């Protein structure tokens, strides 16, 4: 029992470690791609400074300008650090390499999770590190208390997992549809608008806010960013509860879908 647990742990951690080495093999490339966060953050800072000035107030919906700037950095870190295994699954089905990846002795989705963890982790660190100086310059230190850090990290972890579940559902569709780009695009746009990537949910009109808050999209991006800039116990419990609920729902969908899709898998070529 204990031996099996140790073997399973080393198995999945080896997958993460191997991809981490792979990421480090072309870290300069990743760094080059991450540099554009500086530009994005600069535009956000200019834009929201203008908005706050035009409103002639120091707070909008309870968030200061400094809060908002920090919010966007965290939201971008969450968005850009997402595990993009849906495209990888699509590629595997298209080029047939799924003939290798599906028949190894591991859980196929867990493989993709631990594989993507390395890639996502590296990206998150890079985006955060590159965006940090600019944010510190314009917004100063964050107001998050040390005691709340583990709680925000927990929400971040659940956010990543929830996003992984949603993208898994999209990725597994490739077993039958071969192309999943359009599904991904729709999901991405929903995260943009209802997930708080373009604008914090607090700034949306009330009728839209109410709906957006219970949908899963905000729980992957808005939730950790908001708690980071303005931690609030009531909101924390609501978010964690909703995250767990959606994980349960999507988890059940995934179980059913995985069984169905593996039966219907059609692979190209000989």
């Amino acid at each position: 029992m204990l031996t099996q647990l140790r073997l399973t742990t080393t198995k999945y951690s080896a997958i993460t470690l191997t991809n981490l080495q792979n990421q480090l093999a072309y870290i300069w490339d990743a760094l080059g791609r991450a540099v554009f966060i500086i530009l994005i953050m600069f535009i956000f800072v200019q834009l929201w400074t203008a908005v706050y000035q035009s409103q002639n107030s120091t707070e909008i919906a309870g968030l200061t300008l400094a809060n908002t700037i920090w919010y966007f950095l965290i939201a971008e870190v969450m968005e850009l650090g997402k595990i993009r295994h849906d495209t990888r699954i699509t590629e595997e089905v298209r080029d047939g390499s799924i003939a290798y990846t599906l028949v190894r002795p591991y859980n196929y989705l867990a493989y993709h999770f631990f594989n993507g963890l390395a890639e996502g982790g590296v990206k998150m660190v890079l985006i955060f590190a590159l965006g940090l100086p600019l944010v510190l310059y314009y917004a100063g230190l964050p107001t998050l208390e040390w005691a709340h850090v583990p709680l925000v990290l927990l929400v971040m972890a659940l956010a990543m997992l929830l996003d992984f579940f949603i993208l898994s559902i999209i990725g597994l569709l490739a077993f039958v549809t071969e192309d999943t780009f359009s599904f991904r695009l729709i999901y991405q746009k929903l995260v943009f608008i209802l997930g708080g990537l373009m604008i914090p949910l607090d700034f949306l009109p009330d009728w839209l806010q109410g709906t957006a808050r219970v949908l899963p999209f905000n729980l992957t991006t808005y939730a950790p960013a908001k708690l980071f800039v303005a931690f609030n116990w009531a909101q924390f419990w609501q978010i964690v509860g909703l995250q767990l609920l959606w994980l349960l729902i999507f988890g059940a969908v995934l179980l059913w879908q995985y069984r169905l899709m593996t039966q219907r898998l059609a692979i190209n070529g000989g």
Partner: protein
Amino acid sequence: MQYETDRPVIEVRDLAKRFQLKQKAPGLRGSLQAVWRPEMREITAVSPLSFTLQEGEMLAFIGPNGAGKSTTIKMLTGILFPSSGHATVLGCVPWQQRRQLAYQIGSVFGQKPQLWYHLPADDTFRLFARIYELDMKAYQRRRDFLVEAFQIGDLLQTPVRKLSLGQRMKCEIAASLLHSPRLIFLDEPTIGLDVVAKQQIRDAIRTLNETENTTIFLTSHDAGDIESLCRRVIVINHGRIIFDDKTSVLKRQFLRRKVVDVRFANALTEPFALPGVETVKQGTYGVKLEFDSRQIPVESVIQQVISGHACNDINIADPPMEEIIREIYAV
């Protein structure tokens, strides 16, 4: 789970696979029609197949492109669910016990890479050791054995992207053998390789079969692979088995053309011609003849040759395996 050795390694009974294929008429109109009312056509990739494979056998499973070879392999490794029929591989139903089976089988797809492109092969080897839950000491021994068998000792520290195709392929195959599978599926393992690399790979596979009694299931378009490795051949075309016997029987049964090389004692003075026999090449002291042995018996041709000329040497050869395969596919 230890599998009983007296049962066949692979048992396949009426295994079939059909796919639904979307059809589209040419042009924009066809595209629009396909959006609203996609026309589906069912294609049979594999018609009901039945065969068994015993432990330690080396089987060549051959056929032209699109014959259903890879689909069969994919059903036997558990990636694809069959449309009907049964199969057990080492006692497991592949598509139901995929993970359990994974520890006991290895597969190599010549046209698909499995090694991490930016990392040295050794890193992928270590990852596989963890994935297959190998004891690290046993893994080291196995790795050393495979390094020796495939002669890849000096390649393991180089990023895979810097290796030549032949070097990479040897590492790819070795990677699939790290967990000491009892059965290996090799899907065109030597495709695109030079003669030396091909030979090294064949030697290594043969060593594995001889020392560990590993069962080999090979598909290849290379007649050399088949001839040098496999005693048994299954030919599949349009999803059906059209031949299942020894490699030597295959050669005999489909041997239609014979090639005869004659070396004469004296110089030829005029063009050499025999009825029903094609003169492929003619030199001063020799000719190369080719004919269909079912229409003209070999002894008749030889008699005609020696009755008119004094000969120093006569060599009767089978056509190369390539040609035999070409003939079978045309059936």
